[in-house]
């Protein structure tokens, strides 16, 4: 751990995380207060703190990135923190009623008395905020230990959230499964970190990167990175360690499932970028682009991507429960996202950080970078995927069938249009966007992914694009089935609406955002993502980087 930068500089860079932790503490306090009205405020406090942290992260981005974080991707942590904050606030709105509902469930079903304290509303939001803080730490991690702690910080609260989200056996079952398998996966990637440390002697990511750049990639280093990639693959539900996803997503309460599908995935990809950054993506000699990953790691990632796509999509066809389908969709979508990693970042024109607030920097015209930028595509698709999943699952979360269970079977969802047209349209829009229908956000993401994969000159590029294309065709089966069941099914008037206003607002904003992503919002998002993923090479001296006005 090098403390070259002054300690306070480091602390200032962690401001967004601190705001989240502060918010968590506030929620704890508010949760325990005797008066019910104050307890009801906890949800607002949580959402407020999430939004505040996003603003803080956005405003902080103009500071020269001296703090910890990948030296070569100065903008990435900021971008990731902002989307974590935004998506987190949507999730928090979605999660708002989960704890309250527990009380109602208790009263309604007079289940056996479960827990000593009469109410634990505050803790739930605290866990969510802490987990988000963990995700933000992952984005900004500069050191292996830091990364380890951040990843654990994301997972541990989520285990508890699942356990206490619903009071039936299924929630506990999925919690225990997620916990144990998560622990095993953690062991795997920590062992990977150990081997990485062993091979280079440093735990700082920048030092490892310098060491590898100097001495090349040893076999031990390869083994370490491979193990870490597979271990972190558990977090993003990628192929080899994907089998837990279906049961966990089905067991947890729907808004919690939305949380699991989004935040750990963003944290996981941030971690993957850092880990892969240590062995590859060095600025190439002629200054035109970045070197590729070592072939072994590259092909491992490619196999993981293809396997997740195929397994995710084919499993999705045969599922009966919509939440399990969303699990499969999460596996498949991480397959598409891995394509972004395969393509790698683009070398940013060497003009260094552009002054001005984050917003101006977003709109700066960086067309040259757009086309070859895998990580840019990854960021865009992460956002669009997150919005789509949150929109869909929050809308599903609002529905309960007659006897109080989640309405997630195909037939129980039929004919939603007749009773709640708005929710039906939201579900249809989000699923069509995840499928990649041309007008919506998903299509923009998929175009960028395909462009980046092709532009990355890899031998397998055409095969990967074909996999992407054919798999999204297969995915159309269950996405369209969802749309059709919801819109055209015959009304079975079992569904009624949970009185959860905020969840519906969350779903609506997500759906509108997805629609906007296809339209006018696509441009700014795309530019921001590309700036974030443009690898700025500090030590590159200016002469070698010959960049004409419109790119190479």
């Amino acid at each position: 751990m090098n403390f070259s930068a002054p300690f306070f500089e480091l602390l200032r860079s962690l401001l967004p995380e601190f705001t989240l932790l502060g918010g968590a503490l506030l929620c704890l306090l508010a949760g325990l207060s005797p008066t019910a009205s104050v307890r009801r405020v906890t949800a607002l406090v949580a959402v407020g703190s999430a939004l505040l942290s996003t603003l803080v992260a956005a405003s902080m981005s103009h500071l020269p990135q001296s703090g910890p974080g990948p030296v070569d991707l100065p903008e990435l942590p900021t971008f990731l923190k902002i989307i974590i904050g935004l998506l987190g606030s949507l999730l928090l709105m979605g999660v708002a009623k989960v704890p309250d509902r527990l009380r109602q469930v208790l009263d309604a079903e007079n289940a056996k008395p479960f827990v000593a304290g009469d109410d634990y509303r505050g803790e739930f939001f605290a866990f969510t905020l802490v987990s988000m803080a963990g995700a933000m730490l992952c984005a900004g991690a500069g050191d292996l230990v830091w990364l380890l702690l951040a990843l654990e910080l994301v997972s541990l609260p989520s285990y508890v959230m699942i356990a206490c989200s619903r009071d039936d056996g299924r929630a506990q079952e999925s919690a225990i499964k997620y916990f144990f398998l998560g622990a095993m996966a953690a062991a795997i990637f920590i062992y990977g970190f150990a081997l990485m440390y062993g091979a280079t002697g440093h735990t700082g990511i920048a030092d490892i990167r310098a060491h590898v750049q100097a001495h090349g990639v040893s076999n031990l280093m390869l083994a370490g990175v491979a193990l870490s990639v597979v271990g972190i693959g558990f977090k993003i539900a990628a192929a080899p360690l994907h089998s837990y996803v279906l049961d966990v997503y089905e067991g947890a309460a729907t808004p919690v499932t939305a949380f699991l599908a989004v935040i750990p995935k963003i944290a996981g990809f941030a971690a993957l970028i850092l880990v892969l950054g240590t062995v590859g993506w060095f600025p190439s000699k002629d200054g035109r682009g970045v070197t590729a990953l070592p072939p072994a790691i590259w092909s491992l990632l490619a196999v993981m991507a293809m396997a997740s796509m195929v397994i995710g999509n084919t499993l999705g066809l045969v599922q009966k429960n919509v939440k399990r389908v969303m699990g499969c969709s999460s596996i498949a979508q991480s397959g598409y996202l891995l394509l972004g990693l395969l393509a790698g970042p683009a070398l940013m024109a060497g003009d260094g950080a552009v002054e001005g607030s984050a917003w101006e920097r977003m709109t700066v015209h960086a067309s040259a970078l757009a086309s070859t930028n895998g990580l840019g595509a990854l960021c865009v698709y992460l956002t669009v995927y997150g919005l789509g999943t949150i929109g869909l699952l929050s809308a599903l979360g609002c529905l309960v069938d007659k006897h109080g269970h989640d309405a997630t079977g195909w037939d129980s969802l039929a004919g939603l249009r007749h009773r709640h047209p708005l929710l039906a349209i939201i579900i249809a829009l989000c699923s069509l966007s995840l499928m990649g229908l041309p007008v919506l956000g998903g299509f923009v993401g998929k175009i960028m992914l395909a462009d980046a994969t092709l532009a990355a000159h890899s031998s397998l590029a055409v095969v990967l694009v074909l996999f992407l294309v054919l798999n999204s065709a297969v995915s159309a089966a269950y996405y369209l089935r969802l749309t059709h069941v919801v819109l055209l099914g015959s009304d079975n008037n079992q569904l009624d609406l949970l009185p959860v206003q905020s969840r519906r607002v969350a779903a609506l904003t997500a759906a509108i955002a997805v629609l906007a992503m296809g339209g006018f919002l696509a441009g700014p998002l795309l530019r921001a993502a590309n700036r974030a993923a443009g690898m700025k090479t500090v030590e590159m001296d200016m002469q070698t980087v010959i960049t004409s006005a419109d790119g190479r």
Partner: protein
Amino acid sequence: MTPETMSSMSQTALAHYLAIGAILFVLGLIGFVTRRNLILMFLCTEMMFQGIAVTMIAFARYHGNLAGQAFVIFILTVAACEAALALGLVVLLFRRRRTLNADAWNEMKG
């Protein structure tokens, strides 16, 4: 300071330690898969963490800097947190199903 100058450990000695670490890790892994009892399964994950700790210490000693040992301290703290959480969950589950057998929990499948 480059590792070679400080190291007082030869390659072969390092290999032995690594082997022990790896064996511990794999045993933990196999134990996790074969054991039915929840608590024993958790203990196996702990054994995996210990395996990693041994490897880290060996590397620290080999590289001669203390980063590895600091890493181990953090691994232990993380393991401790997980232990607390694991036992909490196990108590929760035991109260519900009165059994520690992991196979009792397979309601969701297919």
